């Protein structure tokens, strides 16, 4: 008997006002004692809902509508509340997403261990106290921190505390829902490592829920992949790495590459997942699947064993059957699958830094004064940074949060003034601009925001949003501007433009929104674009799409771009030159390939090591030819909802 058995589980969100949302459908899987299983899916895939359903922590209006969840053979869906309460934390515990909010902000850390341990164990108060100390040490936190309040800890520490808390009663199963999302990569890496070590030592089972396949593959024994509320693949890690069975898994894996490789390429999955208010009758992935055959659009594939795992895919199943029949291929190789990709090779990058210099940053420093009581402490956010931006070239600015990269961006755009140093835009001193000067300057310097959801005002149509810069800077009248809006939309690949210009931002998908943001930045025909983590908020499968777009625009329009990121892989793909920032200092600067392949600085090396390294199967790499012309972006013509 497995530790946890989930059978035919359905979860539905039903409200009076909206059509019900079938978030999880017919999900089956098992989890054995001591097993470390990853659950991967993009936003909207239902992975968190599944996790909450297992824990019976669904928030209304979410409800388990069918199926069963058994823990050690006990049916949790029908178990009386009180009995379930007795089981909680002793049998299974959980760590919530990022823990920003999952620790009670108004009580000390100790109390949050204390209450559950006092209620659920026989330990005396002093024993509990000692045990809390042990638990904290276990996650590499000094026991004295138990006197602290959650807000006094850093994000990483909170996450570790949450992990220690989950292990307080030595549970048999721990469910972790995006435990490291939002943390800096180095911290992520460390926590994951810590978790894995503890799991090996203590032997509890783990269900690790994450959107990041790379991380999951690094630590898990087995990986479950969900797509649009359905389980599409369930396979051991080593097998999945070598030969993903489902085309979707394959597509996801395409987003990962070793940035230090001689040639780097990643792929994306065009399109978007279906609307879950209507249950797809066929394979939900079929509209995006490059392998799709007519059957995929007609019948729903079952999750069936093939090769060394299970998958729900007609194409794979046919190949498997075929293989079983013919024995033509080795059974460990998995199905043959196609790719759409963006690679370093697709951009016409020269090794030499050419191009006209547009902006010059000279020995810029920025110091913030902070008052605390009588003391004034100063913090050097940026320390003596110099670089140039050249037209048609991308300069990557790589660093973790707090490294000063956003401050540099703000100084370049004139929203903040450097404490010392100068920024030259042609003959203009940017750091001396005020009022009207900044207004005029911004015609030349535009910004692509990190979060496409907050960068577009929800009350305006796309047309309005794009007309504003055109009318303000281009001095166009309304009719001309409208005409220009269509051109812009087509430029960023939102075709047919007529269909998009009347929409509101919230009617678009994340990728489409980010395209609109890019279009808006292009509108005044700027010389410089600052792209601040433009892909970090997007689903993994479509990141490459936006990178590709940016790359194309920069090269074609001879725009100088400052690409700000924490992610060396995307920096490598997009940038010509890379600056690595650590606590306000440039620790490494040079041509992208050189910096990443031959890092001289320890910090750069740490960053590189933190990137999940996935060895991609050779046959996949061999199976496609990088095209200079990017794959035509297929814009899903149907908006999110079609009611």
């Amino acid at each position, binding site marked *: 008997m497995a530790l946890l058995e989930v059978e035919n589980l359905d979860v539905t969100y039903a409200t009076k*006002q909206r059509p019900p949302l079938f*978030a999880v459908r017919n999900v089956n899987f098992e989890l054995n004692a001591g097993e470390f299983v990853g659950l991967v899916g993009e936003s909207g895939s239902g992975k968190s809902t599944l996790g909450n359903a297992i824990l019976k922590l669904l928030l209304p209006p979410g409800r388990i509508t069918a199926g069963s969840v058994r823990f050690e053979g006990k049916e949790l869906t029908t178990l009386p509340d009180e009995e379930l309460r007795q089981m909680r934390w002793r049998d299974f515990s959980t760590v919530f997403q990022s823990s920003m909010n999952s620790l009670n902000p108004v009580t000390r850390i100790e109390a949050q261990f204390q209450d559950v341990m006092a209620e659920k164990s026989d330990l005396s108060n002093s024993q509990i106290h000692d045990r809390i100390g042990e638990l904290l040490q276990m996650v590499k936190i000094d026991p004295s921190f138990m006197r602290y309040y959650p807000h006094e800890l850093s994000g990483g520490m909170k996450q570790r505390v949450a992990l220690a808390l989950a292990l307080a009663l030595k549970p048999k199963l721990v469910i972790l829902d995006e435990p490291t999302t939002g943390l800096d990569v180095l911290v992520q890496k460390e926590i994951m490592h810590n978790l894995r070590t503890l799991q090996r030592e203590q032997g509890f089972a783990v269900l690790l829920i994450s959107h990041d396949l790379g991380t999951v593959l690094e630590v898990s024994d087995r990986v479950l992949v969900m797509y649009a509320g359905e389980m599409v693949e369930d396979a051991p890690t080593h097998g999945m790495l070598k030969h993903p069975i489902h085309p979707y898994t394959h597509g996801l894996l395409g987003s990962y590459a070793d940035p230090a490789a001689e040639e780097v390429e990643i792929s994306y999955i065009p399109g978007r997942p279906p609307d879950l208010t209507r249950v797809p009758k066929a394979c939900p992935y079929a509209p995006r699947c490059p392998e799709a055959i007519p059957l995929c659009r007609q019948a729903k594939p079952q999750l069936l064993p093939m090769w060394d795992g299970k998958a729900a895919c007609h194409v794979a199943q046919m190949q498997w059957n075929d293989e079983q029949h013919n024995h033509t291929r080795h059974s460990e190789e998995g199905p043959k699958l196609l790719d759409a990709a963006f690679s370093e090779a697709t951009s016409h990058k020269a090794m030499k830094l050419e191009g006209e210099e547009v902006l010059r940053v000279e020995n810029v420093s920025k110091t913030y004064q902070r008052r605390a009581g009588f003391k004034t402490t100063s913090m050097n956010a940026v320390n003596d940074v110099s670089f140039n931006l050249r037209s048609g070239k991308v300069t990557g600015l790589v660093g973790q949060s707090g490294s000063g990269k956003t401050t540099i961006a703000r100084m370049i755009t004139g929203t903040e003034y450097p404490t010392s140093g100068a920024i030259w835009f042609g003959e203009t001193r940017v750091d001396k601009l005020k009022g009207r000067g900044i207004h005029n300057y911004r015609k030349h310097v535009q910004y692509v925001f990190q979060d496409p959801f907050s960068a577009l005002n929800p009350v305006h149509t796309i047309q309005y949003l794009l007309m504003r810069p055109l009318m303000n800077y281009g001095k166009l009248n309304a009719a001309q501007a409208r005409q220009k809006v269509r051109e812009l939309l087509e430029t960023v690949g939102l075709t047919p433009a007529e269909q998009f210009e009347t929409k509101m931002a919230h009617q678009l998908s994340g990728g489409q929104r980010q395209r609109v943001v890019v279009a808006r930045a292009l509108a005044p025909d700027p010389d410089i674009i600052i792209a601040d983590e433009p892909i970090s908020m997007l689903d993994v499968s479509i990141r490459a799409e936006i990178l590709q777009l940016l790359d194309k625009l920069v090269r074609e329009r001879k725009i100088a771009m400052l690409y700000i990121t924490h992610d060396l892989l995307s920096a490598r793909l997009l940038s010509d030159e890379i600056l690595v920032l650590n606590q306000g200092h440039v620790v490494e600067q040079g041509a992208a390939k050189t910096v990443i392949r031959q890092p001289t600085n320890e910090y750069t090396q740490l960053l590189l090591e933190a990137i999940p390294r996935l060895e991609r199967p050779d046959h996949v790499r061999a199976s496609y030819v990088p095209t200079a012309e990017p794959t035509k972006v297929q814009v899903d013509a149907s908006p999110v909802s079609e009611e």
Partner: protein
Amino acid sequence: MDTQDHNLKEPLEQEGLTVTQGVTTAVPEPPILEPEDDDVVPQQARAKRHVPEWFEVIWSNRKARVGLILLLFFILVAIFANVLAPYSPTDISFGPSQMPDSQHWLGTTQAGQDVFSQLIYGTRTSLIVGALGGGLATIIALVIGMVAGYMGGIVDEILSFFINLGLVVPALPLMVTVAAYSPVKGPTIIILVIGLTGWAWGARFKRSQVLTLRVRDYITSAQFAGDGTLRIVFREILPNMLSLTVLSYISAAIGAIGAEAGLEFLGVGDPSTISWGMMLYWANNGGAMITGQWAWLVAPGLALAAITSCLMLINFGVDALSNPQLREE
């Protein structure tokens, strides 16, 4: 790829502001860190409707629906008061302090006026005071709150001082003082007094709202798009505060109606006004308790409660608009 999960998660992450009875507190917003977190998507399905989405949300709320119907009823009563009222409210030709009977459904006042007719005409005063007094307070609150929130710096310091001052200075005593010493009496001055003393809550509320809105990327984006300050305030910020503004307008109207009744009851109104507050004043001073003319005492109070309830019910719906957790499930 994102919207669905947002729907599922929105109850968790939507919240930035808690609105309770005009008590607004910014709950610290968790920084947005993850692709699944965002906060703009609650109105996922509002395209392609003939009725505006806000109306739909309000209407779909049972309480708000009842409130809207009631409000319509009150408005109709106010408009057609002269048709509905059996007598003139100032006609003093009936016997004094009569108990309710078929001639006078709610009896008469000590001066021999028909209570029922006064009740019907009183609807007008309450509605007008609510609409104008609440409106004045809301406009002042909006201007001060938005300017303070958006401009920041010294302007904010000064305006915040006035807002805090307005919060600290007890409103009703101030109103009593101003109303008592004002050269003219009557609803107009009461509207002014209410408007001028009742804006602080709203201003504080709006200021904090603007503070959270103005750091949104789309405001920066508008700056990069070259929009001017006024345009940003009115075209980018204001529309996002609409439901909250309506919310505080209705709250201000409720406050205004209550304050008017209170002031009139205390006797700083114009005694010849026909209004519910004045009816209570007269019932209290004209011996309704001695003569046992309960209807005269009870009716205006219930009418006041009814009109405030109906506004509160509407507010439930508007609240749901800005605060999806409170939507009915």
